[in-house]
């Protein structure tokens, strides 16, 4: 069974460590916040100028001056900080964010990522994605393994305009957890009930399979 979006987020949450500063992109990455293990302190950075992002506000308490990078009303946790955009990207560019989780249209087996522009469609802009992928120490891409019409999104080379080159190290899809090394996509784990062959068929880029591939497990939280 392919993972649900919630399960992809849940699997990514296993990568978190206590004291991590983490930037979560829009979409599946945002859901990771729901699976931070209890007792672990993870501080969420929102690139519009916020460290210590908390949950959405209680009904009736939304504050127009307190939003996240997705322009959603949010809250701030104790120990949080507000700052301007130049300072925010100083943190990001300077490598102070421990983990960035973001979505993608395509990833190549050399770690290139395309995530911001589809030719022929209206361009909305890259926002902070190029800064994040160019500078984060540790990036995990959360994505579907294939497009709706079954085409692989894990490619030899990206076909869409790039967001960054040779920057992605880890991918969690609905089918698998993969690491990118010089050899290509190294299969680490597979979704429960999904066979290695299914993943092979869904992966266009170089896929490395070494030994037995375990099924993904989730921390109970």
């Amino acid at each position: 069974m392919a993972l649900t979006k919630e399960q992809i987020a849940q699997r990514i949450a296993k990568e978190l460590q206590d004291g991590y500063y983490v930037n979560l992109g829009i979409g599946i990455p945002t859901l990771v916040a729901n699976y931070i293990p209890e007792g672990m302190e993870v501080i969420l950075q929102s690139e519009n100028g916020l460290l210590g992002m908390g949950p959405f506000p209680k009904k009736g308490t939304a504050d127009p001056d307190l939003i996240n990078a997705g322009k959603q009303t949010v809250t701030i946790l104790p120990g949080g900080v507000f700052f301007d955009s130049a300072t925010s990207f100083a943190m990001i560019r300077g490598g102070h964010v421990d983990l960035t989780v973001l979505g993608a249209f395509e990833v190549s087996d050399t770690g290139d990522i395309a995530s911001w522009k589809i030719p022929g469609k209206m361009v909305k802009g890259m926002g902070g994605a190029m800064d994040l992928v160019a500078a984060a120490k540790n990036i995990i891409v959360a994505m579907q393994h294939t497009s709706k019409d079954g085409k692989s999104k894990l490619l030899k080379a990206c076909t869409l305009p790039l967001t960054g080159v040779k920057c992605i190290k880890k991918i969690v899809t609905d089918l698998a957890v993969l690491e990118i090394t010089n050899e290509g996509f190294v299969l680490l784990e597979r979704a429960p009930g999904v066979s290695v062959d299914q993943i092979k068929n869904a992966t266009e880029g170089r896929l490395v399979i070494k030994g037995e591939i375990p099924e993904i497990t989730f921390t109970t939280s």
Partner: protein
Amino acid sequence: MNKVVANATEAIEGIKDGMTLMLGGFGLCGIPENCIKALTQTPVKDLTCISNNAGVDDFGLGLLLRNKQIRKMISSYVGENAEFERQLLHGELEVELNPQGTLAERCRAGGAGIPAFFVPAGYGTEVAIGKEVREFNGKPHLLEHALVADFAIVKAWKGDTHGNLIYKETAANFNHPMATAGKITIAEVEELVPAGHLNPMQIHTPGIFVNRIFQGVDYEKRIEQLTER
């Protein structure tokens, strides 16, 4: 010292056709609502607007777009705006997209007298086209240039008569770096107090960067994505 002006109309005096403006805000958060409205009341056109976003159809920079007062946008994300899309597709509007951190840093550099600097963002992408590439610490970087504006227009929470500014929460965003990079910087604030009423250790933008200041009226502070528990 006389930085205080009566209102937005007085504040935007001198903004002329073809000028470059910086406008603070992220999405609709912390945008200079009063000055944008005042600009829609003028015939000024062919503006180049440096702003992270382009507002929505009927609010923020969307109002200036609707009036066709903008010729070019320098932004990082311009989604959520149908009129913007229409003008862009019809060639009525030019857009230069920058990575968000590069955009913020270009403004900061403009204010700080740093004409150019290297960043890793955008290397190997279409953003790199025409830009100098140089390797530092084994990693390729792009040379990016500072931005300055004829007028920077920002919005703060509190301000004093010396032009010192304090922003509320995430409304600092682009307002701070842009405030430093205007040949003339206009600040509209929710509350204007006499010099000496703000704690000198809590100022976000020192008044030296601000040329005109006024207390705005009727802030709508529209929320783009109301999310609640």
